[in-house]
């Protein structure tokens, strides 16, 4: 008997984040007024975060298949085949809203959630990355948020025992009220030992594992589906608290249990906790689920069905076990000191039934909770095209050397050592390339293979032209993997945008997705998992459109790779790819000339692929060990980074005819790489490039302790390093 002790008022519906027509849809679906618990359940299932109601129709346009893709979007994480019977399982997910409200715990549980997504599928996590954006440096909250987020990411990952090997940190006033904290986890499993969420068999036990359920995080997913206002910090109680120790135990216990053969299906309790995990397992398996909440291990007394169903307490899992294996499973969990309770069973009714203290608190059609979630084709308008900045309209306000020194020490381009030294990036002993290069490299087990990993997007490009910006984000991830010698295989996307209810920001979303799809198709780089984070806006001010791309690539022989550091004196420095001197939306235009304008550089995907394939071949054949792509700050910034990383200077003499020096040095034309090779190989490489129609030009030669730009503008590597390394520590110490 379903009783409803609480009257469902329009106010209550609104507090649950449901629009009146969505509520009506739900009432029509179940044919009666819901109980409070049912209202809670549907609010959890139908919010933006869980239902993708505004994004779903656009996500369908993304390519998700390739011969090496084992599992695309729709599971806890994406799975790709990397050969030798091994699969790489990975995903990126946002924890933006909680991290703004409580930076340490918000970021920590973001890492915890994504690690759980990966080991839920049977993978042992081997690397973690992140993508972070903060408000402008002089905003009073920025240092506090940055320091809390970094400590939280480190605090969780370090204790859990996964190396945090890469990421991106940037600042912009458009993130003042909504920071971005996107965490990516990468794991390894055998291809024949991958676990899914789909329940099978009627009458099988549903088991609750891990930490106890408390009142934390109730309505976390609903919070993540609303814009902020000035009172948002009052939402602090809805941020969960992380326990990396419990997660580490949960990892070991789950992997041990999976080996025992007892697991039919498994789903972690992430956003919307018990509700979302149980519904997903049942709906995917065409089964009903019946839960007895009296059996749920609780941290606090007197928790109601409503609270238990919506709690986002961390470090919990739900499993369907093979009948008869409960004892064995229990022994494993008790060995690890974790809770284990049979809390329900699968049924053939296709109903989601919740019992508590002898009463039925909810009885809902399980498939419809997911399938019948609202689906919106939101009104959107195309972003206005920006004019192409002509080169003659840009007058250099300072010398190129001064500009370069300014850029290497600027908030966005400075060294992020202060950040990544707080992350254990060396644990597991497989980190072949540490943070600071184009992509991180981790060895796969004892080798010979390796994975190249990166996170990328250029939000200012995405705002100026969502389509080109979306393309560029994918292309840059592909390029960064290529630059270390990896073959790019697949991506996870973390789509951070403002409110979908504003046609302009919905237009940015639609445009970026089209660009992402186009680039993925052109580069054979499918999307296998992802996350959508909308409503990143405060008091009507939205963030820059930020579709962060997490890329994974494969090195067949991890010992054959390239890094950005100049390695020897007297090597030829060669630029590969065409340079037109594109200054629109460049870092030079923004940070040196003070102009945020223009169309971003277009991405020629054919040239991108051709140039990248050429560079990768040079690395894989062992000819080239020094490679850096050109992105923010163009050729000049890349050269400076190569010099700083290697402690060796270079003399740059070549300037293409008819191109202004500042445009040549700082233009952000896409699809370009700088390589350094022994002089005797240079001619061959230039010849080969020429034969393939790939633009390649010798810029100069490595050597000395200064980077000498054309026109005898010399900056010592020491001076570059001092500027590059000092900004962030000084800023965090209150000195910058």
């Amino acid at each position, binding site marked *: 008997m379903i009783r409803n002790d609480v009257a469902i008022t329009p106010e209550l519906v609104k507090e649950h984040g449901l629009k009146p027509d969505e509520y009506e849809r739900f009432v029509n679906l179940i044919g009666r007024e819901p109980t409070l618990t049912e209202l809670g359940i549907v609010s959890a299932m139908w919010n933006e975060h869980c239902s993708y109601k505004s994004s779903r129709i656009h996500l369908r346009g993304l390519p998700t298949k390739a011969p090496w893709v084992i599992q695309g979007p729709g599971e806890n994480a994406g799975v790709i085949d990397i050969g030798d019977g091994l699969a790489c399982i990975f995903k990126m997910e946002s924890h933006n809203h909680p991290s703004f409200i409580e930076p340490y715990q918000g970021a920590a549980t973001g890492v915890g959630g994504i690690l759980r997504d990966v080991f839920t599928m049977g993978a042992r996590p081997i690397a973690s990355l992140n993508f972070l954006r903060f408000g402008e440096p002089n905003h009073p909250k920025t240092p506090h948020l940055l320091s809390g987020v970094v*400590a939280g990411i*480190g*605090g969780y990952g*370090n*204790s*859990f*025992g996964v190396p945090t090997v890469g990421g991106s940190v940037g600042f912009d006033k458009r993130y003042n009220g909504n920071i971005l904290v996107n965490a990516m986890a990468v794991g390894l499993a055998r291809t024949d030992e991958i676990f899914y969420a789909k329940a099978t068999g009627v009458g099988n036990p549903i088991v609750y594992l891990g930490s106890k359920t408390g009142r934390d995080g109730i309505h976390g997913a609903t919070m993540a589906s609303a814009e902020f206002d000035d009172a948002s910090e009052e939402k602090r109680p809805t941020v969960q608290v992380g*326990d*990396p*120790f*419990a997660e*580490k*135990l949960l990892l070991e216990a789950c992997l041990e249990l999976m080996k025992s053969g007892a697991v039919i299906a498994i789903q972690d309790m992430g956003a919307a906790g018990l509700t979302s995990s149980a519904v997903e397992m049942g709906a995917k398996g065409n089964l009903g689920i019946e839960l007895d909440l009296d059996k749920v291990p609780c941290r606090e007394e007197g928790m109601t069905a409503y609270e238990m169903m919506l709690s986002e307490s961390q470090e919990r899992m739900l499993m369907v076990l093979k009948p008869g294996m409960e004892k064995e499973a229990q022994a494993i969990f008790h060995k*690890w*000191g974790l809770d284990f309770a049979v809390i329900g069973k699968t049924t053939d009714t296709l109903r989601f039934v919740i019992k508590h203290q002898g009463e039925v608190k909810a009885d809902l059609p399980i498939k419809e909770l997911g399938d019948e979630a609202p689906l919106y084709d939101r009104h959107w308008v195309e972003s206005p095209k920006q004019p192409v900045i002509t080169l003659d309209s840009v007058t250099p306000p300072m010398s190129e050397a001064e500009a370069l020194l300014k850029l290497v020490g600027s908030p966005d381009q400075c060294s992020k050592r202060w950040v*990544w*030294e*707080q*992350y*254990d*990036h*060396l*644990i*597991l*002993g*497989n*980190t*072949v390339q540490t943070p600071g290069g184009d992509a991180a490299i981790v*060895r796969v087990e004892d*080798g010979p293979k390796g994975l190249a990993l990166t996170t990328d997007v250029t939000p200012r490009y995405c705002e100026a032209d969502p389509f080109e910006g979306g393309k560029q984000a994918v292309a840059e991830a592909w390029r960064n993997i290529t630059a270390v010698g990896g073959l790019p295989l697949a991506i996870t996307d973390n789509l951070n945008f403002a409110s979908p209810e504003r046609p302009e920001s919905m237009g940015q979303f639609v445009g970026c997705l089209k660009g992402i799809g186009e680039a993925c198709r052109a580069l054979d780089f499918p999307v296998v998992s992802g996350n959508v984070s909308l409503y990143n806006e405060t008091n009507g001010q939205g963030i820059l459109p930020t579709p962060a791309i997490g890329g994974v690539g494969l090195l067949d022989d*991890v*010992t054959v790779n390239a890094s950005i550091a100049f390695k020897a004196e007297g090597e030829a420095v060669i630029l590969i790819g065409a340079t037109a001197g594109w200054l629109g939306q460049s870092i030079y235009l923004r940070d040196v000339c003070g102009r945020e304008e223009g169309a971003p550089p277009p991405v020629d995907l054919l040239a991108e692929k051709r140039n990248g394939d050429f560079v990768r071949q040079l690395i894989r054949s062992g000819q080239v060990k020094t490679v850096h792509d050109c992105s923010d700050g163009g050729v000049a910034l890349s050269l400076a980074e190569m010099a700083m990383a290697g402690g060796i200077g270079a003399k740059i003499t070549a300037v293409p005819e008819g191109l202004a020096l500042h445009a040549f040095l700082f233009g952000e034309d896409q699809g370009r790489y700088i390589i350094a090779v022994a002089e005797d190989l240079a001619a061959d490489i230039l010849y080969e490039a020429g034969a393939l129609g790939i633009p390649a030009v010798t810029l100069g030669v490595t050597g000395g302790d200064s980077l000498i730009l054309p026109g005898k503008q010399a900056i010592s590597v020491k001076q570059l390093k001092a500027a590059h390394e000092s900004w962030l520590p000084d800023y965090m110490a209150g000195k910058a």
Partner: protein
Amino acid sequence: MKSAVIVFPGSNREGDVLRALKQAGSQVEKVWHAETELPKGTDLVVLPGGFSYGDYLRCGAIAGRATVMDAVRAHAARGGLVLGICNGFQILCESGLLPGILMRNANLKFICHRQFLRVERNDTAFTRAYAKGQAIDVCVAHGEGNYTADEDTLKRLEGEGRVAFRYCDAQGHVTPDANRNGSMNSIAGIYSEKLNVLGMMPHPENLIEDLVGGTDGRGLFESLVSSFPRAA
């Protein structure tokens, strides 16, 4: 040589040290924290890095009182070798096998970076493969590695030659800049009175291959293995 690597709930570098020991030629067995005995014929006990029991209390405080630690103390009392790395060092201090304590790093932050250590003596079972005064390039990864002890203890450690490693620069100079966690006397590792127990914050086990940064950490494990005659 037979090594026993103790695994506490929350240990996370046991696999790293296992790899280093095997590479050096040791047999290795993992031992669960709830065991009451060490495997028969254990020559070396290793307490690996990690966050035992979450380190929610003082680091190593709970692990120092774990069941298996009685067996480890007995092994040490018999003169058996014990190596504690990072969390293992913290556990050794908490279990009474080594003096002093590891406090929060001077900058109050977790730090992970490459670090040179000066080998203070090379006549122990742990360091015979190194030269005295050699600067070895390893790494650190800890939040609480700031070695602290009272004046008498420090005096004894220094007087008895029980400082195993000090933080130094690439040339082997012990400088304030090289001592980033703020340890007293730049101490990175210490021995017990009989030199059979070594606790150290840095991770030699992560620097055992050129591919992942270098091989300076190997010497420690090779020293240990060479201390034992090969099994027939």
